[in-house]
């Protein structure tokens, strides 16, 4: 502020040039020695991944009976984890697509790993609907509408089939967007790699990129089109996920507020996960110049705004349950607050209503330690939210004679922890082998790039 007349907030540390940005980010990948810390982290993640393999193997051998599912709670951890993971992915798409269209320059240093996070989260999410069928090899026939001699089709009125299309489209577009964004950087790595084998590998990924004007022209166009395509997906995927619940008549699920409230919740959870990853990443690799306090502060603001929308959803659910005058709706909210699982609701309110209010204060928004703590609480809170919605609604439905209780088994937890292992394993591999921050986009925000384009 004191030095220069431009009052834009600083989104890159001082003194950076094209060369320093490229050196710094490329060196994370092309360095000779892998840091010891990486091996430690990777080992933990990889260990958890093995737990997933064991859990899934046992599941396929024995069936879904190894989980705690029962009647009436026929849909527990699998759907909770599915929604949790798919929600987390949304922040990546929001950052890469919507913030691009809104010309928010601060997205530049966080979009790459946020998009990677999206892909890995979708991979974890996609696993659950598939494995919860118990016999995934016949699953295609429940999931995909294909002409078959038995004349059996999925129910097109079911949002579960809409999910198949929504999620697979989302995964495809996200992967394309991520890969297209990587191409110029892969070319940079190709050009800088000294090892012949590494050079060839990155060269294949770069698809012959030479950085000519025509390449850039086509590239920018493709990137904008993909951003445009991704934007509705940010909304549509979680809207369809919310329909999974809302079109049913179960009190606690059947609420018209669900679509916008789920979408906001997804972005909320996603930004919490971006913070969870970004804060250790920048500390460990010394990236404070690229992922600045300004970035963290902005993400804190997004966290606050989306938490308020989520709280709006909770308020409307509770108020309308009472206002409806319906016995079942009123019992649902009473049971949610004071029933057998009542404590989960209050913990959920602590995580998602109280904790993010810290983000009103700049003091907390700009301290990485506080933000990390808040983000971890939100991660837990958003998982609990889905637990509350799924389990407390199902376990007390209309008929008291069909009430039941649900408790997760060891294998429920093992599968869930295992997907965290899968997610982290992929993420560790990603930061080791690909540039976690977009090199070429960072080059556009260094002072050198600001030529005479101040004119409008």
């Amino acid at each position, binding site marked *: 502020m004191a030095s220069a007349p431009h009052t834009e907030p600083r989104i890159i540390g001082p003194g950076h040039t094209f060369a320093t940005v490229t050196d710094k980010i490329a060196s994370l990948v092309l360095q000779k020695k892998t840091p010891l810390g990486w091996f430690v982290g990777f080992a933990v993640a990889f260990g958890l991944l093995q737990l997933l393999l064991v859990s899934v193997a046992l599941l396929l051998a024995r069936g879904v009976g190894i989980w705690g599912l029962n009647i009436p709670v026929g849909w527990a951890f699998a759907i909770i984890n599915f929604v949790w993971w798919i929600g987390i992915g949304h922040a990546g798409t929001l950052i890469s697509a919507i913030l691009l269209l809104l010309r928010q320059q601060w997205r530049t240093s966080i979009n790459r790993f946020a998009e990677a996070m999206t892909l890995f989260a979708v991979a974890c999410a996609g696993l659950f609907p598939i494995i919860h069928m118990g016999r995934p090899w016949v699953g295609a026939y429940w999931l995909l509408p294909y002409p078959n001699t038995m004349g059996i089709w999925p129910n097109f009125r079911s949002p579960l089939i809409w999910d198949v299309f929504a999620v697979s489209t989302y995964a495809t577009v996200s992967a394309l967007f991520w890969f297209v964004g990587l191409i110029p950087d892969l070319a940079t790595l190709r050009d800088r790699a000294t090892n012949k084998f590494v050079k060839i590998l990155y060269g294949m990924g770069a698809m012959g990129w030479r950085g000519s004007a025509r390449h850039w022209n086509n590239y920018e166009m493709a990137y904008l089109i993909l951003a445009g395509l991704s934007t509705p997906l940010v909304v549509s995927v979680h809207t369809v996920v919310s329909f999974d619940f809302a079109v*049913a008549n179960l009190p606690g699920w*059947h609420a*018209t507020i*669900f679509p916008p409230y789920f979408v906001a919740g997804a972005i909320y959870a996603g930004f919490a996960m971006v913070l969870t990853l970004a804060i250790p990443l920048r500390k460990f690799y010394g990236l404070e110049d690229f992922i600045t306090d300004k970035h963290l502060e902005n993400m804190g603001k997004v966290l606050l705004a989306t938490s308020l929308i989520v709280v709006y959803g909770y308020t409307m659910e509770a108020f309308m349950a009472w206002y409806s*005058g319906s016995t079942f709706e009123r019992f649902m909210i009473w049971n949610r607050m004071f029933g057998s699982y009542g404590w989960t609701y209050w913990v959920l309110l602590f995580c998602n209503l109280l904790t993010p209010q810290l983000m*009103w204060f700049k003091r907390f928004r700009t301290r990485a330690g506080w933000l990390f703590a808040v983000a971890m609480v939100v991660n837990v809170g958003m998982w609990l939210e889905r637990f509350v919605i799924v389990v407390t609604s199902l376990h007390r439905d209309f008929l008291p004679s069909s009430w039941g209780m649900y408790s997760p088994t060891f294998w429920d937890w093992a599968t869930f922890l295992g997907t965290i292992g899968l997610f982290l394993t992929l993420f560790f591999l990603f930061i080791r082998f690909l540039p976690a921050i977009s090199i070429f986009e960072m080059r556009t925000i260094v002072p050198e790039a600001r030529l005479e384009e101040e004119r409008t």
Partner: protein
Amino acid sequence: MSTPTMPTPPSLGRLQRNGLAFGAVFLLGLAVGFFLDRHQFFRSYLFGWLFWLGIAVGCLGLAMLNQLTGGLWGLVPRRFHEAAARTLPTMAVLFVPVLLGLGSLYVWSRPEVVAADEIIRSKTAYLNVPFFVARAALYFAVWSGLALLVSRWSTQQDGGIDPARAGRLRGVSGVGLVALSGTTTFAAIDWGMSLAPHWFSTMYGVLFIVGWTLSALSFTIVLMARLSRESPMSEALQPGTVHDLGKLLLAFTMLWAYVNFSQFLIVWSGNISEETPFYVQRMHGGWGVIAVVLLLFHFALPFALLLSRPLKRHARSLAIVAGLMLVMQLVDLYWLIGPDLLTQGRGHAPLRFHWMDLASALGFGGLWLFLFARQVRTRPVLPLAEPAVRALVDGPQGAEVVTS
């Protein structure tokens, strides 16, 4: 550091005069209606008043949103948004006749109906006259308080930007938007949803938040396009700003469709007797025709038009679409509350236009525009202390170069 005196566009004076005359004529007509059909008078009164109230509340929301986000889309019309918000105390006074007509409007206010209706009886803790009045008082207190506070601090910035005051403005706007969403939601439930006291939907408040913001945005665009023929708005309104307003209009048009369709799909899929009457009522007969009109002209047509980039950058063309949206917001409100006003939530009523509905919408329109124009003329029409705005106005004239 002297603030140059800024001309007030002459058309605002005309708006004020014509608005008053226009409003007086139609409201007088509406007043005559009171002696012809008292029940219809209150129905029409609520309809017309609620529509224009929505624009004022929506403008308050846009004013506070822009304090948080910045951007020329809200800086250029900032003084107009604030002026619109300052009409809220008067709109509160105009709510009094609704209170006098409670019995004609809301069945839950009639003890004999409540006594015979078990469902309404179970909600009397919320749906009762004293609490209804107290809540309305609270909504207006919050809205008027925010409008006056934000306006005052924002106007004070004209004498020189004070960072501390700017910080306070942001703080008040952040908390204010939360308060505004909450009060708008419950106002929508009170004044709209409780017309049919059995029916409920958790999305209802969102429909009004989105609808009122859309109305305010459309009003802004129409106004800016009209004023862009005169100084100083002719310099201040750049194609880039118009483009941003156009993008916002497109976004809110889609959001409107999204929330309405989501509610519809969930109610339709659920297919339970507590909820479906709302759509059964609104999808048949004349109300069904209005539903199709809304689908086509509140969403399909403006959506298709707003995809065009040249249209979004051209103020007059964009204003035509925004004008259509304003009319459609009026139709949407008629469709949302109209059937329940006629049936009071019980049974069916075929679509029936009444001349008083039109008189009320036009009369309140004239009156509100008068109030609005009067408020606008009390302050400079542009926040000239804002560097971004100053650059727009000073730039072409080259009078002074802003250096700090």
